[in-house]
């Protein structure tokens, strides 16, 4: 079963552009949306792909560019990135204002398979793994024979929950879960997933992006024979986004229990979730 497509044939060559931030807003605790306009690449961006964002030289102590999955791409070429402050680069980004210039290199990487081949699709996003999941929900909803889509979104606590109402099409059924139970159901993403899987009469397609432990838990509870597709969007430290630095190694199961490393940036970030070595 070929689950990872080689999109090299039509993948747009990435462009490096200095763009101006058009909008930045706080949408949840430590969580922001930054918007900019980038007409050279916007039309070709697919869900799952990412861009590298960098500061203008000398404007920040951030040295390397950082990878971010695309969150939303509007018809007017406005690109939105959803991010949460964790370290030096995201704190720098949170301090940006409309008019500030940033470097954007993209689109990079592959996309989620947008032909799920299933009547039901389950999208599972954990924490700041949400952006490509929202993008995919929007994209799948536009299909001529759109499947029934369930979107599970998990966070540690309610203060971090991003309001999905304005960004996810109305036909997508959203299931919010928080570990402290302050918003949505109390518990973890995999608890919700288990409940939804029980209601599937035919093998669903499952897509996920989130913390490694969450994705490993999801992978552990899926039976390859009982799902049509299982794709995960992975993350790893990277410097170039183009397969040069070889920094973003993702371990995949090789032959005879061996591990083979592939670059998250060029062979991913979307992988067949059954091929990733989660241990």
């Amino acid at each position, binding site marked *: 079963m070929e689950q990872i497509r080689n999109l090299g044939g039509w993948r747009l060559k990435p462009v490096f552009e200095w763009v101006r931030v058009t909008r930045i807003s706080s949408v949840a605790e430590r969580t922001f949306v930054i918007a900019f306009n980038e007409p050279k690449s916007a039309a070709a961006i697919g869900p799952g792909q990412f861009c590298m964002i960098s500061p203008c030289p000398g404007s920040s102590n*951030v*040295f390397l560019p950082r990878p971010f999955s695309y969150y939303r791409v509007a018809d007017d070429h406005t690109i939105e990135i959803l991010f949460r402050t964790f370290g030096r680069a995201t704190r720098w980004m949170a301090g940006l204002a409309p008019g500030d210039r940033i470097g954007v290199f993209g689109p990079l990487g592959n996309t989620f398979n947008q032909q799920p081949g299933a009547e039901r699709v389950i999208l599972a996003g954990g924490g700041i793994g949400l952006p490509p999941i929202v993008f995919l929900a929007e994209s799948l909803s536009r299909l001529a024979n759109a499947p029934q889509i369930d979107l599970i979104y998990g966070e540690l606590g309610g203060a971090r929950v991003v309001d999905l109402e304005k960004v996810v099409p109305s036909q997508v059924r959203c299931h919010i879960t928080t570990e402290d139970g302050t918003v949505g159901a109390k518990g973890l993403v995999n608890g919700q997933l288990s409940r939804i899987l029980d209601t599937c009469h035919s093998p669903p397609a499952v897509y996920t992006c989130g913390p490694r432990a969450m994705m490993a838990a999801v992978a552990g509870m899926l039976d390859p024979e009982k799902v049509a597709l299982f794709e995960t969007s992975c993350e790893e430290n990277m410097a170039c986004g*183009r397969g*040069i630095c*070889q920094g973003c190694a*993702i371990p995949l199961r090789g032959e005879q229990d061996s591990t083979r490393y592939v670059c998250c940036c060029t062979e991913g970030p979307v992988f067949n979730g059954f091929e990733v070595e989660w241990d």
Partner: protein
Amino acid sequence: MNQTVKCMGLSFQNPVLVASGTFGYGEEYYDIMPFSALGGLVTKTITAARREGNPPPRIVETDAGMLNSIGLANVGLECFLTEKLPWIAKHAGQARVIVNIAGFSVDEYVEVAAAVGSTPGPDALEINLGCPNVRAGYVHFGADPESVHAVISGVRKKVSLPVIAKLTPNVTDIAALAEVAVDAGADALSLINTLPGMKIDLSKRRPVLGMGFGGLSGPAIRPVGVACVYKVYQQMQGMGAQVPIIGIGGICCGADALEYILAGASLVQVGTANFLHPRTPGNVACELAEFCESEQVGNISDLVGLAHER
């Protein structure tokens, strides 16, 4: 403006090259920064067999630089010669193609060098001496004078291409190692390679990198690189040896490259800064040309080593 630099019997259209491991096999950035516009491309280190590399995380940002512990992940000699090198040779234009090689034994260095040297395309070989010698207690080749001599002289006997020894700064006296490399037959010296470093993850209370240690690169190491070039240039002058030096370490702009040139480098390589913006090496070359024009310097080579007392 003429930026041509003569070095190792080769003509470089400008003095700016891209460092091994930071420009892939030339193809990855070609649409944004064609290496054909540069002095040359130094390809990612090739070993005899394909290597998967080290467990992640492999890189992490530090102040004014980054740490990497890639583990020499590469496609291996055969794939390089049959798939990568032909593409590079076809697209090089006036740029020089320098193939960086490594091995885990003297025999492996010689084997890889001989295979690359007998294939059309490369203009020179750069020998990465930063590999552990598995037959000599895993001491890095570059840290041991006997190993440096054995590798460089072994390669020298097998290939007619210019041989560049890439030296590590992690030694007591880099000038002494440079002398050994030259005595063994090196036509040029590249310096410096990365410095060992570590970053600790405070929440996990463990090193960030999968292998613990990594190689530090970027502007943070530039003063170390400039000092090494200065020191080795002085040594070469003392020996009466006309061995060119290629300066590497934290070059992000023309002014950075000029420091290396004034310290004694005939050519420079842009490395980590390629990750910040792939057009960096082209900008460095332009800024050097602008400097020469504004300062009425006929050729950049006229500036080599001028920081030394005369």
